[in-house]
């Protein structure tokens, strides 16, 4: 079963050709790392799956993006339905200026789930999954802004988990965190893989090596190489990949 798939996708911002004829498949319960130099289109690629690029007026694309065997860009499908099924974690922790509880409950509430028992249960489950429950279970009413950066990021992960997505997108989720918080996030990703499919953008090659099963290397909007992580780092097929991971450019 293929979980998410991109076929012959091209993306433009005005005249910038940000993705060039990219095709890729993602298997369930894997972590795929997207690597490549700044501006090569990793974020653009990631944001295809929940149509976040649509928010940018100059964005144009062609090709197909499938999630759960549904064409994400088809006219019949509803955009909020897609976004509900695809979780996203951003580079900087961005909790809402609300309580910890309401942050996690947000996704349920906007999708019309207000049953108190259901909400409470989901919040607890999501916080447990994101390994934050023990730290915050007594202060759920506290403002999320009072948490530390690492805690905030795990809260954002819990928030994404609460709507039970199949696919989780992470755009450099640990780049603004200290080493210890980063390690915790990495552990967490490793746990989450059992239940979810994860696509992860990272600039940290060691990180990609540690936690991903597969790695895709992008360069100037093109997919250069997509391979098992071990293979790609130890013995890449492409010479550009070789140059990049050995630090000769980028």
């Amino acid at each position, binding site marked *: 079963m293929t979980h998410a798939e991109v076929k012959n996708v091209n993306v433009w911002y005005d005249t910038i050709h940000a993705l060039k004829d990219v095709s890729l498949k993602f298997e369930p319960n894997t972590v795929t790392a997207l690597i490549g130099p700044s501006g090569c289109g990793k974020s653009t690629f990631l944001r295809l799956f929940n149509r*976040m690029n649509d928010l940018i*007026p100059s964005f144009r694309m062609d090709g197909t993006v499938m999630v759960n065997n549904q064409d994400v860009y088809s006219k019949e499908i509803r955009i*909020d339905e897609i976004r509900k099924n*695809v979780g996203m974690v951003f580079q900087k922790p961005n909790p809402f200026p609300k309580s910890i509880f309401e942050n996690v409950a947000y*996704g349920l509430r906007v999708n019309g789930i207000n049953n108190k028992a259901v909400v409470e249960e989901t919040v607890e489950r999501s916080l447990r999954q994101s390994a934050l429950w023990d730290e915050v279970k007594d202060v759920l009413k506290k403002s999320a*802004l009072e948490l530390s950066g690492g805690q905030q990021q795990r809260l*954002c992960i819990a928030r994404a988990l609460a709507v039970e997505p199949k696919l989780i997108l992470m755009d450099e989720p640990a780049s603004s965190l200290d080493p210890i918080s980063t390690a915790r996030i990495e552990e967490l990703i490793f746990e989450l893989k059992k239940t979810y499919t994860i696509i992860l953008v990272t600039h940290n090659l060691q990180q990609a090596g540690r936690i991903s099963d597969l790695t895709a290397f992008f360069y100037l909007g093109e997919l250069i190489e997509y391979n098992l992580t071990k293979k790609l780092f130890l013995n890449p097929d492409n010479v550009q990949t070789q140059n990049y991971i050995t630090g000769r450019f980028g």
Partner: protein
Amino acid sequence: MTKARRIYEKIVTGILFSSSTITSLTVILIVVFLFREGIGLFNTTPTEKNYVIAVSRQNTVPVITSNELADIFNQDITNWKQLGGRNDSIIRLTLNDLSGIFTEEELGPNLENFPQKLNEYVKTTPGVILYLSKEYIPKNFAGRIIPVKKISLLDFIFGKHWYPTSTPIPQFGIWPMIVGTLMVTFGAILFALPFGMATAIFMSEIAGNRLRTIMKPVVELLAGIPSVVYGFFGLVVLVPLIQRLFGLDVGETVLAGSIVLGIMALPTMVTVAEDALNSTPKSLREASLALGASELQTLFRVVIPYAKSGISTAVILGTGRAIGETMAVLMVTGNSTHVNYSFLQPTRTIPATIAAELGDTSFGGVHYNALFALAIVLFLFTIIINLSVEVIKNRNKEVNQRG
């Protein structure tokens, strides 16, 4: 650095420093002058200079307030008993009433017998009250000059009558104007708030780039139109319209003032609120949308709560704009200084009263002082508004810093 250069720099710094001091000095000067002229109202008796109020020696009322005096001469008070005195009905005597009491022969062609006659009359009439120029009061006056109490702050603020030029005693109660100001302002906000917010939200959240580039100049132009022009437009278009629509005798009403002021408060509100909405971080919007929220849900659950303090600032600044506005309200609210609690009746606001009456006052007179006292009230309103904006800003800073 050469010596000349150093001196030059010193001088420039000095000039810069003194310029910046002028601003603070101006604010202080404004306060000083407003209070200097305005406090005068509470330090003088409100009767005209050179005039006295006198009663019979038998009268036991010790002092009299200006309101009581006004009531006496309006014939609302007719017996000294009502003021805690003896049971004598009040007989008023001013220069105008002379012919009803004395014959011309008695007084003589040039009123030379008047002081003497007056003494006789006062002795025999225990209920009399005189309001006369000092020159007519004889040396051996048989009556008693009764002191008039100074105006109290409470009388000033809660007094319901504003008759600044009436004789023998003017009345300076600003309650009608306070009510007028608050009603007109309230009405203006009632109108401007929904339209201002809708426009701000439309510009920052809904409109595309092209529509936004149309809306921005519209708001700027609205802000640029001078207030007399709004007043003029209100006077020739809105006032007749309201008159016809509600079948009123006059169209100059609180409602007309509210609408005109509402339009004038719009640009302030829209600009400040739009800035506040735009200041909501993109990442919060994206996080909300990524969870499957619609734009509307994102707006009400994330953007507006985040921009709350900016939005309150917008409302407060809009209120400030409305409270202080002078010419436009003066032109469309009709000049009624009676207490009025209806939106379909004329009224007059504090600034409009100042603008309408200051030209007729004499420098240093009671009326002149009263208008400055009115300005102090207005000034206090604006200080309160500024302070609340400041407080909101600081509180918001704290909240955001925590995050």
